Structures are given as C-alpha cells and as structure tokens.
C-alpha cells in the first residue's frame, strides 16, 4: 500500500525523521517559488508568454475568490488562499508522477493525513484570528445567537469543520492513489489510464473545494450577516 512508502523515514536531521512526504513538500515549495520568481523578475507592461500565463492564473484565482469574498477582502486574503490552492493542486498532481509513492523521496504530500491536518489547522486559526481582528470581542457574540444554548452546537461545528476539511482532502487523494496503484498491480497496461484521468479531475476539484470552503469560512467570520 502507498502508506508504507511515506511512513518510513529517509534520514534524520537533528533527531527529526525526514519522510518522502517532507522532501516532496520542500521540492514543491522550491518549484513554486522559482516559477513565481522567474515570472515576476522582469515584469513588462505587455507580458510575454510566461508572464502572461502566470497573470492569467492569478487573475482567474482573484476573480473566483472575488465572487465569494468581495473585491476588497480578496485583495487582502488572496496571498493565503491562492498559495493554499497552488500548493494543494501541485501536491495532488505530484501523485501522478511516475512511481510516486513507491520511490524514496517522492510521495504526494496531500495523501498524508499530517499534511492535510496541518493545512486545515492553518484554515482554523486563520478564520478565528481574522474574525477577532475584524470584529473584536463582538466576534464571540455569534456563538450565542440566536439562543444561548446554541453555543454547544456552534462550538462542535467549529471543531468539525477543520477535521472534515483534513479528512476530505486526505481521503480523496490517498483513496485515489490506492485505487490507481491496486489497478496498476493487477493490469499494468492501459487499465490504470481512466483512474489517472479521474485523478486529474479530483486533484483540481479537491483543491477548489478546500480553498472555496476556507474562503466561505473566512467570509462567515469577517462578514456582516452572521
């Protein structure tokens, strides 16, 4: 199973075990940074192909989140949401590389529960920090509306949200990885192709879903009518 490959450590740094998941994460981060750096190094008013492609990506992300958060807030929180989206989608697609999950040092990060739980924790803290920043102590009022005893359910909801975010991303990606590798084990030729196509679709869909839910939660925390 795919779990075995990235559960075992590759080497130790200062007593910390470094797993394939971590090396892939570092690789993805470096790659994304390098692409962004080279795309924005010599920006021109009339963009070339490379800069144009990157601008298209940023513009479409801004347009998408703008439909949920509104223009002013999107400008403020696009760095968080856009980074999350790009990291998740590249992580999901890294599972489609040849022998990913079976080669030491290459395993899709989002197929590991620790990574998705970390991302969900970022969402959790971002939502509540931004809520408190925007509304001050009034933020806590919405836990007690419309009735005081609603606080129990609303607190449970706040805990369930990041848990389900983490589990959804992890379950989809690792499930898809497992299915693909099982089919590959049975019939290595042609048969896994449909599952790779599904993997392309699910990778995009899960990245969209994760960031959309994050932006909806942020909107709920900082918005007026809640």
């Amino acid at each position, binding site marked *: 199973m795919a779990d075995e490959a990235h559960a075992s450590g590759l080497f130790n740094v200062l007593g910390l075990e470094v797993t394939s998941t971590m090396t892939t994460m570092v690789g993805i981060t470096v790659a994304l940074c390098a692409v962004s750096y080279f795309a924005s190094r010599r920006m021109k008013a009339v963009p070339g192909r490379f800069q144009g492609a990157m601008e298209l990506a940023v513009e479409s992300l801004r347009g998408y989140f703008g439909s949920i958060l509104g223009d002013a807030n999107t400008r403020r929180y696009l760095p968080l949401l856009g980074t999350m989206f790009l990291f998740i989608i590249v992580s999901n697609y890294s599972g489609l590389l040849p022998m990913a999950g079976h080669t030491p040092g290459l395993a899709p990060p989002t197929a590991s529960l620790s990574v998705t739980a970390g991302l969900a924790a970022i969402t959790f803290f971002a939502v509540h920090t931004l809520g408190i920043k925007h509304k001050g102590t009034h933020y806590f009022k919405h836990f007690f509306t419309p009735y005081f005893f609603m606080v129990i359910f609303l607190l449970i909801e706040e805990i369930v949200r990041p848990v*389900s975010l983490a*589990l*959804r991303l992890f*379950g989809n990606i690792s499930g898809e990885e497992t299915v693909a590798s099982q089919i590959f084990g049975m019939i290595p030729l042609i048969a896994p192709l449909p599952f790779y196509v599904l993997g392309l679709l699910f990778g995009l869909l899960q990245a*969209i879903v994760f960031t*959309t*839910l994050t932006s909806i939660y942020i909107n709920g925390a900082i918005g007026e009518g809640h």
Partner: protein
Amino acid sequence: MEYIAVALAIALSTFGPGIGQGIAASKAMEGIARQPEAAGKIQSALIISLALMEALTIYGLLIAFMLLGQIG
C-alpha cells in the same frame, strides 16, 4: 468476519451520499437547463454541496482503514 465489517463500512457509507449526490446533481442540471445564464453560480454551489456529502463517504473510508489497521 472482520473483513466483512471493513467492506461494509465503506460500502454502506457510499450508499447514502451516492443517492444524495445524484439528487443534487439532477436538480442542478434542471436548474442549468431552465436558466443557462446562472450556470456558473449553480456549478460552484453544486461543487460545495457535493463536497460536503463526499465527506460522509470519507468518514466511512477512514473507519474502514482504521478497522483494517486493527485486523492486520
């Protein structure tokens, strides 16, 4: 015997969300057919609701994995 429990955990948990997702998708398509200009909004709402239903199946998958870990 335990393997039957693992299989049932994932099989039963796909059942309800499968029906729910089918209903949601069919209603969304009806909506798009009736009002093609609202397709974008319907699409994003549909994806969110499908994702929330999907979560239930994923819980089942998680339980199946946990059970499998207990056995093996």
